[in-house]
Every structure is written in C-alpha cells, then in structure tokens.
C-alpha cells in the first residue's frame, strides 16, 4: 500500500512531445490535439469572436504551427499549468494572425487531423454561451468536458473489447441516460430493466466505475507533464486532494 492514490501507467504526452523520436512525438501531438482542439476551437469562436470558418482555420493553423515549431517543448511545468501555457500560446498566435492577416495561407492549408468542427458548432449551438468575463472558466470547463469525453470513448472501447457490454450499458444507463434534473435510476429499477439481480447491478457498476476511473486518470496522466501537475489536475477534476 502506498500513498499514491493515482496510478502512473501512461507516459505524459507533453513530455513525449519534445522526444527525439519522431514516431513518439507524432503520437504525443495526436493525443494533445485530440484533447485540446475542441476547447481551442470554441475558445477562438467565443473569446476572439471569430466566425466558424476563420475559427476552423485558426485551430488547424495553431496546431500546425505547434507541431512545426515544436513550441509545446517550451512548456515549463514549474511556471504554469499546461492549459494556461497553451492558451497563452493560442492568444499570441491569434493576435499575430490578426496582425499579419495571413491566416488563410498558414492555417487553411494545414489540415493536420480530421477534426469534427461541425460537431463543435452543434455543441456551441446547444450550450448556453459563457457569461461575460468568464472565458477562463469556460476554457477550463470545456477542457474537463473533453477529458471526460475522451475517457468515456476509451472506456467504451475497453469494455466492449473485454466482452463487458452489459457493464457498459448499465453504466451508461445509470450515469448518462437520466434527464438532466432527474434523480439517477435506482439499482432496483436497473435490475428489472436488465433482468439482473440487484446484487449483480451493484457489482457490475462497481467494476465499471473502477475501470472508468482508471481510464480518466490515465488520460490525465497523458495530458500532464509532471507528477505534481498530474496530482493537481486530478484534484481539480475529481475534487479530492491526493496528497
């Protein structure tokens, strides 16, 4: 038994982004882009008040430049959170692009990943816009949403791969399918719905919960540079002090 509440099983993508190994670097950038493109896109749309087309180009351009110039390698975890660093870089990038008015050439041509901008637009349409002056909180919230989305995707793949489809369905039914203001479905109701005993529902959910938690923490580990930052983020995201 140790004092470490969190498993450290996955290499930090931030660290790997400055690796000498090209393949490792590429994988790291993919992980970072995957986690950050959506918050970045929404941030550019809202903070910089950019139309959708411009925000798409700027998002692509920003990540293209990050890869090309490898500026994630400049991140110093002792000074700030990676998110804060990334946002500072992003603001600088957009400001420069505005001045140079050259964004179409630099961003528009640089399609580094297939990003679902239409999906992001749909989310912007559905969700309430952030309050004036709350853009920092908005970016944090969108980042958390993205981390949980990615973790959920990984969790689905993991459970289906392990033949635990019922666990997955139970978890999603219990956690995600309820109406926003409605209480969670009772274990008894779930047992009737899935033709299981209440004890099995309890056990299946316990296992699913454990697996989901493991994947969330793995994702966080991947998106932080140091153990200290990882713990800080885990504390912020999960609400419990790991120290």
């Amino acid at each position: 038994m140790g004092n470490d509440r969190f498993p450290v099983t996955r290499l930090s993508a931030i660290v790997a982004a400055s690796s000498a190994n090209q393949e490792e670097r590429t994988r790291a950038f993919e992980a970072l882009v995957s986690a950050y493109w959506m918050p970045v896109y929404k941030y550019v749309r809202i903070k910089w008040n950019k139309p959708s087309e411009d925000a798409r180009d700027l998002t692509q351009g920003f990540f293209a430049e990050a890869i090309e110039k490898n500026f994630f390698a400049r991140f110093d975890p002792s000074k700030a959170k990676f998110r804060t660093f990334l946002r500072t870089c992003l603001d600088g990038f957009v400001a420069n692009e505005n001045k140079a008015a050259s964004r179409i050439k630099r961003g528009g041509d640089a399609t580094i990943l297939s990003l679902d901008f239409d999906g992001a637009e749909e989310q912007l349409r559905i969700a309430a816009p952030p309050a004036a002056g709350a853009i920092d909180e908005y970016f944090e919230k969108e980042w958390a949403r993205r981390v949980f989305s990615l973790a959920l995707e990984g969790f689905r793949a993991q459970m289906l791969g392990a033949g635990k489809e019922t666990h997955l369905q139970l978890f999603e039914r219990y956690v995600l399918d309820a109406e926003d203001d409605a209480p969670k479905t009772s274990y008894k109701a779930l047992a009737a719905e899935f033709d299981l005993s209440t004890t099995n529902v309890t056990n299946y959910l316990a296992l699913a919960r454990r697996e989901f938690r493991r994947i969330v923490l793995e994702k966080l580990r991947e998106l932080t540079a140091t153990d200290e930052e990882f713990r800080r983020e885990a504390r912020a995201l999960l609400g419990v002090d790991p120290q």
Partner: protein
Amino acid sequence: MRWLSDNAVERLREEADLPDLGGSKYLVLHKLGSGGMGTVYLAQDVDLGRKVAVKVMNVADSAGALASRMMREARIVALLEHPSIVPIHDVGALDDGRVFYAMKLVQGKRLDQSAGGAASLYDMLRIFQKVCEAVAFAHTRGVIHRDLKPENIMVGPFGEVLVMDWGVAKVLSAGRAEAALTSGDASAELSAIEDADLIETLPLAAGSPGDTSGGTIIGTPAYMPPEQARGQTELLDERSDVYALGAILYFLLTGRPPYESGRDAGEQAGSRRPVRPRQTDPKIPRAIEAICLKAMSESCEDRYASAAGMAADVVRFLDGDPVSAYRENIFEKAGRWLRKNRFLVLLILAYLIMRLIVFFSVGR
C-alpha cells in the same frame, strides 16, 4: 463522439471520484456528503446484505497524522455504545492509502434542517434533551465532543436523535474513562487514544461558517466556547460541550447561531456575549432563555457543571417545574403553577360555577 452536457460531466466526475473499496466487503453506491476530514458514502455491505454509511478520509496518508485522527475517532465512537451515538461496524484502509470506517446508516435530517418549520418548542426541547443525554453519556466515559453543532446532529423519522462526527473529540482521562468501562483491555485502548489526542490539526473544509476549522483552534466558531475560540485547548472540559449545547439551544430558539459570520464568529465567541434570544423573539419563555444563557456563560464556573445537569433543567422546564437557572417572581410562579395544573384549576372553576348556578337557582 457523444456530446456531454454539464450535468453528464458532473455525474461522470462523481462516478470517477467514488472511492474504490474493491479490497473490502463494501461496494460504494453514491456520495451522501462531505466534511473537513472525510466524505461519507452510501455503501452496500456485501456479506450482510445491508446498507451502511462509509466515511472515507479525503486524503491519502495511511501512516500520517490524519489517518491517526480518523482511526482515533473510530475508536472513540466504538467506546460510546449509546442509542444516540452512531455505532461503527468496521475500520480499514483502501488500496490508495485512505482510511475508511463503516457505520450504521442514519436516515433522517440534520438538526439545522429539521428545526423550525412546524416543530413546536416542546418537540424541539425533547430532541434537545436527547442530545444533552447523549453528550452526558460521553462525558461519563471521559470523552468530550468539542464540535457540537446542529449540523452534527441527526433527527430520525421517529424522533430518534444521533450525535455525529466525533472527529475532534478528546479523551479527558484514560483512567477516568477506564473506570466507567468494564472491558479488561480498556486501559491500553484509552491510553492509545489519549496519546493520539496530541494531534491537534485537521484539514480545513472550505467555506461556510459551519465548517470545522483546522489549525490550533478546533471546532466551529459559531458554536464554540470562548476558551476554545482562544485556542486554550488545555482548558477544555465537559463545560466546553455545555457551552456548545447552549449555543445549539440558542439556534433552536432563535433559528440562527449565536454568532453569525465564520471568521468573526471565533473572535465574537472569544470576547463578547450573544444577543439575548428574547430580543429576537419576546415569546421565548424566560426560563428557557435563562437555561440557554447559563450554559453559554463566558466563565466555565458559571455554566452547568455537566450536560446531565443541563438536561435535568430542560426536563424541569418541560414538566412545568422551576429551573435552577432562573429565579421566578411571585407572579411567574403563580402563572407556571396555573399552567402546570390547568386541568385541576379548570375543574375547580367549573365546580365553583356550578355551585354559584345552584345557589342562585335555589335562592329564587
């Protein structure tokens, strides 16, 4: 990829945050609430097929001071077998290093949530009497609570009362407590607890005036006695709990704690008297106000010597008898006597009226 609403993110966050009790016989169902030291979850005891409440320490330091304090709380509560003190079933540590204990699941409302509303003064005082009796029982075992407040008292649907959260309780004297117990190994157990009482700090719960503070001042400013507010922990004894009981009674009478704001409350408790309850509500009986203010006397000497003494005064008030805390004038004595004997008085009055009617009827 499915879009997650704010609510869905919050639910996922809650699920990921639930502790993994995989190595134990408990399966966590959902979170019930959290405090400065730990978070309480509803859990299923797989072996016995019953629901329990599991309190898990917020931080992982199984070898550290916080874990010691939690283990100590569990041991203290285990010593206090009383219907109004929640029994602990089990203590253990999670794989991640956090200590937990399982206790009886208490269903009901916290006193601060259940007070007021339709409850009469009589009902509230009956509840308060049970609180005093539970605390008095702990005192006979040499244990003082040190953080009594309405938030730490649960009231069940059948009027049962439970005093919770003994996390900062203090064992006054192992020898004294041992004398009150019958088990053979009580001495070693109590000595261990008493030694552990040297740990005086707790992690802070963020926020409200009701939160238990950490650092050298232990307890909740809005309800703590002056000596506790001044950090003079060596002066704390049963009368410190009596002060907090007085503050709880104050809350029941007026609907608010004696000192309002969080940080100022400690300073206020350390330096001045609260507003008299009757200034808030003149209908509050003078005798019960006197009980409240006597318990909240700045000097320990002026308070009730024990929670049992305070409970006895509350019972006397409920029974319509004179209370030790208040000297009545002749009119108040007469009024109380009339209220206590109202049926006898009514019968005598009815008899006299009948005699008068008969007298005048015969006279004609």
